[in-house]
């Protein structure tokens, strides 16, 4: 957590544990690309990383406006980290609007690099500055380093043949070059990367390379920086790593699941932020047994996935909040038809269209209850970007083995956040075996596996298994339409029990830290990092604290009640007004506390720590543990 700005004397290289750096500029300034490139570079040199891209819903709002500002925050470290950092130690802003909207993320005394060339009258006006903040003393609390990048690239790219506009579009690589110098990162590898990235437009590639080199050279020659910094490689678990975002990991997990199940997957989806990248990834993997279908709407997407599952493929559909609402009638059909269905919901800010590019966790209750009548489904949630890979496989496994819909709740922080992924050994990935098998002699469409209560999956094409299913209540075993009350009661109970029984196969709740004590932090999804880091801090202060990030939300793991009871207090931080808390209170009747935030931003570690302290009081003068 010690994100550090510059130190004392020039030429010196200081070693620091971690850096939190934030880029901010216009949507057209390429901040996401800059951030991603730096992320790649530091990850490749062995740092642990966590990122938070923060961009507006507009594609490219007019230049210079505050609502057009796009940001990217990265923490890289030589120790294990879990979040992109509460506050940035370094902020790089490309124009006044970016400064205005991002300054609050910079820690006091932090390093503030601004493109001073962009502080022109019109830009200042657009961002609501009366006088340039570079000219009053409003920035005196920071280490301000104005760099006229606008001019610098103009000079560097003289004669490049690019239009003035295109030249300015290279400023981000200038900034990146400067950062590379500051943190002593491998310049050569980056140059290769830039050339590869802009392969299709070599003149742009060369211009960016030049800008990047100019930025690096600027660092070498300027006297502005008192020091450079080195973040040594992190002591991560041994293995092979790559850098992934949650969406990438999730999509990769889906492809892996298809291979592991040895069945074709049909991914039917309608584009929606922030789920669309899963579709893009899968569409680009045509050599794998995954067919993508961009449906006419979300209803077509979920029902096409059901159709695919009926046909024996693995039907998967992905969406985000409002799209999920539209799919619910379809989910109900899959519940009744007892077909495998994986529904990926990348949660975003709401209600309604809301804040489509901001994080929130408002769909948990929608996932569990958002359909007509009792229609139980399994709900799971990965806790880290890289874990999206495993949970995607888990979703397919549960859906096919238990013949039920499985909702995988991702969210905006997971989906777009990146971290190093320790790649699994291929041999460690267990094949996915279909659930209940029968033969034509004994086959009945709603005859259940006594163990899982799953009905057999009997796709068309097999002689002797011809049968009809549908959305009306089914007669037990035969699957015929039935209006019989006793049967309806029985089938409702079976559908509920089938989901409840999944708990029998789940691992116990995974608790970090103290197995009992003062406080348990409970969460799900992308708040993992903040909770984990908070637990770590609190333990450092001497509190006896555990942290459980629930991966299974319906059914809950069987030992959850017992785990909750092992702590004096329980705090459930959620980016919603307390959805998980309600479920756990109703189940346990324990007075569980909530920490709730619904403002479209992720938790700061500090917010969790402070809430925890308020709840449990100061650490008793207990023995401080190692």
């Amino acid at each position, binding site marked *: 957590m010690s994100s550090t700005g510059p130190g004392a004397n020039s030429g010196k290289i200081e070693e620091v544990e971690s850096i939190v750096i934030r880029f901010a500029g216009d949507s057209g300034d390429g901040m996401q690309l800059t951030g991603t490139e730096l992320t790649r570079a530091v990850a490749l040199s062995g740092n642990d990383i966590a990122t938070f891209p923060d961009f507006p819903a507009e594609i490219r709002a007019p230049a210079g406006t505050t609502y057009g500002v796009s940001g990217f925050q990265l923490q890289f470290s030589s120790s294990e980290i879990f979040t992109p950092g509460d506050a940035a130690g370094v902020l790089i802003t490309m124009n006044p609007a970016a400064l205005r909207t991002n300054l609050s993320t910079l820690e006091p005394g932090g390093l503030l690099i601004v493109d001073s060339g962009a502080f022109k009258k019109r830009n200042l006006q657009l961002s609501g500055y009366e006088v340039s903040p570079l000219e009053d003393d409003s920035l005196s609390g920071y280490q301000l380093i104005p760099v006229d990048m606008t001019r610098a690239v103009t000079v560097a790219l003289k004669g490049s043949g690019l239009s003035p506009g295109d030249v300015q579009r290279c400023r981000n690589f200038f900034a990146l070059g400067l950062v590379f110098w500051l943190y002593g990162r491998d310049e050569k590898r980056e140059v290769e990367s830039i050339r590869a990235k802009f392969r299709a437009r070599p003149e742009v590639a060369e211009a960016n390379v030049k800008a990047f080199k100019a930025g690096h050279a600027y660092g070498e020659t300027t006297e502005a920086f008192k020091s450079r910094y080195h973040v040594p490689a992190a002591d991560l678990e*041994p293995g092979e790593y790559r850098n992934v975002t949650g969406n990438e990991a999730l999509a990769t997990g889906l492809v892996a699941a298809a291979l592991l199940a040895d069945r074709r997957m049909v991914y039917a989806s309608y584009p929606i932020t922030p789920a669309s990248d899963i579709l893009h990834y899968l569409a680009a993997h045509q050599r794998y047994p995954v067919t993508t279908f961009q449906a006419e709407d979300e209803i077509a997407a979920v029902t096409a996935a059901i159709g695919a599952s009926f046909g024996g493929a693995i039907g998967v559909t992905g969406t985000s909040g409002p799209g999920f609402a539209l799919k619910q009638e379809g989910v109900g059909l899959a519940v009744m038809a007892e077909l495998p269905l994986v529904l990926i919901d990348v949660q975003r800010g709401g209600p309604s269209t809301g804040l489509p590019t901001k994080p929130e966790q408002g769909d948990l209750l929608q996932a569990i209850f958002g359909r007509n009548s009792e229609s139980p489904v399994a709900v799971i949630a990965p806790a880290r970007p890289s874990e999206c890979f495993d949970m995607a496989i888990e979703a397919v496994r549960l859906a096919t083995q238990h013949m039920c819909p499985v909702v995988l709740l991702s969210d905006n922080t997971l989906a777009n956040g990146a971290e190093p992924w320790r790649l699994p050994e291929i041999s460690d990935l267990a094949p996915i075996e279909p659930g209940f098998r029968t033969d034509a002699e004994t086959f009945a469409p709603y005859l259940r596996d006594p163990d899982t209560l799953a009905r057999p999956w009997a796709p068309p094409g097999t002689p002797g298994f011809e049968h009809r299913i549908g959305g009306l209540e089914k007669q037990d075993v035969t699957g015929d339409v039935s209006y019989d009350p006793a049967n309806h009661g029985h089938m409702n109970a079976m559908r509920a029990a089938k989901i409840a029984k999944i708990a029998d196969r789940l691992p116990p709740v995974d608790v970090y830290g103290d197995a009992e004590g003062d406080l348990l932090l409970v969460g799900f999804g992308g708040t993992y990092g903040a909770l984990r880091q908070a637990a770590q801090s609190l333990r450092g202060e001497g509190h006896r604290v555990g942290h459980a990030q629930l991966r299974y939300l319906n059914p809950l793991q069987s030992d959850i009640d017992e785990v909750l009871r092992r702590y004096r207090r329980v705090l459930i931080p959620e980016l919603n007004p307390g959805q998980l808390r309600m479920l756990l209170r109703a189940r346990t009747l324990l007075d569980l506390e909530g920490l709730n935030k619904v403002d479209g931003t992720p938790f700061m570690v500090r917010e969790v720590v402070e809430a925890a302290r308020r709840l449990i009081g100061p650490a008793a003068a207990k023995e401080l543990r190692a």
Partner: protein
Amino acid sequence: MSAVPGAGERRYTKKDFTSDQDVRWCPGCGDYAILAQLQKLMPDLGIAKENIVFISGIGCSSRFPYYMDTYGFHTIHGRAPAIATGLKLARPELSVWVVTGDGDALSIGGNHLIHALRRNVDVKILLFNNKVYGLTKGQYSPTSDVGQRTKSSPSGVVSPPFSPPALALGSSATFVARAVDTEVQHLQQMIRRMAEHPGAALLEIYQNCPVFNDGAFAPLKDRDTKQDEVLMLEDGEKLVYGREREKILKLDPDRLVLVPGRVGDENGAIEIVHREDAESTMLAALLSEHPRPGFPTPIGVFRSVERPVFERETLAQGEAAVAAGGAGQLEELIYAGDRWRVSSS
């Protein structure tokens, strides 16, 4: 048949396609006749029973799959074409039939229908048009006539109906036809034609609902009137009809409309020939407009052209990718992109 695995040695009878479920339609419902034709025709198509799937939405008509001894899925209201699309993407070799009603297909399901037709998904869509909502007990539908009085339109419907063939043509459907429930020979022929069509096929079937809209198609069925009321479309033939085939529709080249007349009479209009595979939808569009007073209702194939089939094209991209780069493996999937190794320290 578009490459659906055949029945091989097996020879079926109607009974093989009759499920053990009691049929639950009202006495006299037109659905019975259509069911009987399907069950009768299926053995002739030579498709292995296990490769046939009936998918339906919700409505009286959508109960259909329960009565066919094939694979079947009675799904949710309006979504059958989307479900069938997903099924075809998973299993392009299956023979997939959609059974739907005028409400199911054209009210709640309109969007899926037009997209399935546009994409040319190889599904056979049987649209039972009784111009009313049967299952929900008699409200008007998007094919109800202006003025039709129903439970939800006690003073009469105000909006004009869709013409399903016109809508289908506007969605660039490749096969569009119409039949009448009680004209069983012709109905069979139409079903056979759609089965043979490689791609999306829409067959509108005028179906009587004796409970909520009895006699809606009586003029087309009544022995006394039907010869004058029905124009039987024949590929390569002029638009001749009437008891003695003495009437004809011709094209008025000035106003660009069809005008009724008597065969042989000169009225300045041009005799035109119906071609199912016409390059343009022009005549089909003309014919598919709502029957106007004094004009016969066209029955038969409006259009039948070939175009690439959606699921085959989609899957072909994957096949091409595999052919070019080999089938993707777990190893390369996971161990992709820039990587680094952390050794135990």
